[in-house]
């Protein structure tokens, strides 16, 4: 877990303590270094079929970058408390007039005073009716609407009106499996 920096409020003339300098140094490192500040980039390893008319979670089992070890093979299990922003890109092999929506879903863990354990909030909704005869993609981007606490889980979900495959199918096989579908997130600021 990344420790939230404790920034000293004041420096006094003649103060010989090294601890405040160290606190300041850590704060700068936290702010400027994503090896310290939470950031993740996850990818799915499969292209599961998405059933019709139900929100379905796309599991992300590959962590290309995960500075705070949030990857839980499904989505992101928050480790460091704070406000977060998330983004994702979804694809389906579609035909015209499909309903295709994507969103994020946060589930409260045991520690969040603003979101009871097991309670959920859907956010970052995007989508509509496809009008292509091949593939469709949507990109999601939103700020998580509550302060995230350790144990909260964020997943990415599809909703389609007809069962589809969660992968591009342009040009039969050439493009299949060749586009990444990332789920990314990063710490924005502190929160309680």
């Amino acid at each position, binding site marked *: 877990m990344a420790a*939230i*920096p404790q*920034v*000293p*409020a*004041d*420096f*006094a*003339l003649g*103060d010989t303590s090294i601890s*405040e*300098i160290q606190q*300041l140094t850590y*704060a*700068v490192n*936290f*702010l400027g270094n994503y090896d310290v500040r939470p950031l993740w980039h996850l990818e799915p390893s499969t292209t599961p079929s998405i059933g019709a008319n139900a*929100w379905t979670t796309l599991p992300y089992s590959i962590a290309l970058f995960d500075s705070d070890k949030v990857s839980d093979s499904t989505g992101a299990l928050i480790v460091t408390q704070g*406000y977060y*922003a998330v*983004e994702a890109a979804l694809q389906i092999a579609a035909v015209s*007039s*499909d*309903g*295709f*929506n994507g*969103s994020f879903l946060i589930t409260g863990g045991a520690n969040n005073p603003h979101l009871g354990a097991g309670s959920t909030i*859907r*956010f*970052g*909704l*995007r*989508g*509509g*009716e496809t*009008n292509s005869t091949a593939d469709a993609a949507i990109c*999601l*981007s*939103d*700020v998580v*609407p*509550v302060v995230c606490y350790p144990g909260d889980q964020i997943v990415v979900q599809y*909703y389609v*009106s007809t069962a589809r495959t969660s992968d591009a199918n342009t040009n039969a096989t050439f493009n299949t499996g060749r586009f990444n579908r990332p789920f990314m997130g990063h710490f*924005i*600021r*502190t*929160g309680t």
Partner: protein
Amino acid sequence: MAMTIPTVPQLQAGYIAQPVDMTNLAACCTFLLTKPLCRVHDVTAGQTIGASGNVPATTINFTTEDIDTDGMWTVVNPGRITPATPGWYKVRYGVNVGNNGASCDTAVFQVRGSGNPLGAGENGPFIPGYALSHTTKGGCAASSGVWPYYLYAGDYLQVRAGGDAATNVTATTDAGSYFSLEFVST
């Protein structure tokens, strides 16, 4: 409630750092750790999105504040997010357009306040979005990006939408419309 933009001290060779310099450095870190952030969403639905030509014209209203660390949104002006701290901001939004089967264009506009050196007027549209609502599952026109103009005190941003010949009505199915601003730089 505007935040104070921190002063970054200049420390030349041979200069003996003073307590005020170290305090200013600390203030920079505190500012970045607690920077302005606002997110609002709609729980009411039912707002009619008018038909429009090339430029979206219906300002989308929001009802509920999720995050507002710098006093940027008020129910008195439900269609605005007004940055209190000047700077560059990232915008993220989505307009739930319901399921009447019509298309909807969206974009963000900046209304300049009295403190903007460009004077009164508007910047935009930028950060466009689009959705063709599905008659069963609806749709949500969404987009995101860094606002391409520096925002001064008194400026505010609005999400506007416009439909085709038919009219859309906002919905809250699955999730209501949302709008957020995140400070990214001085």
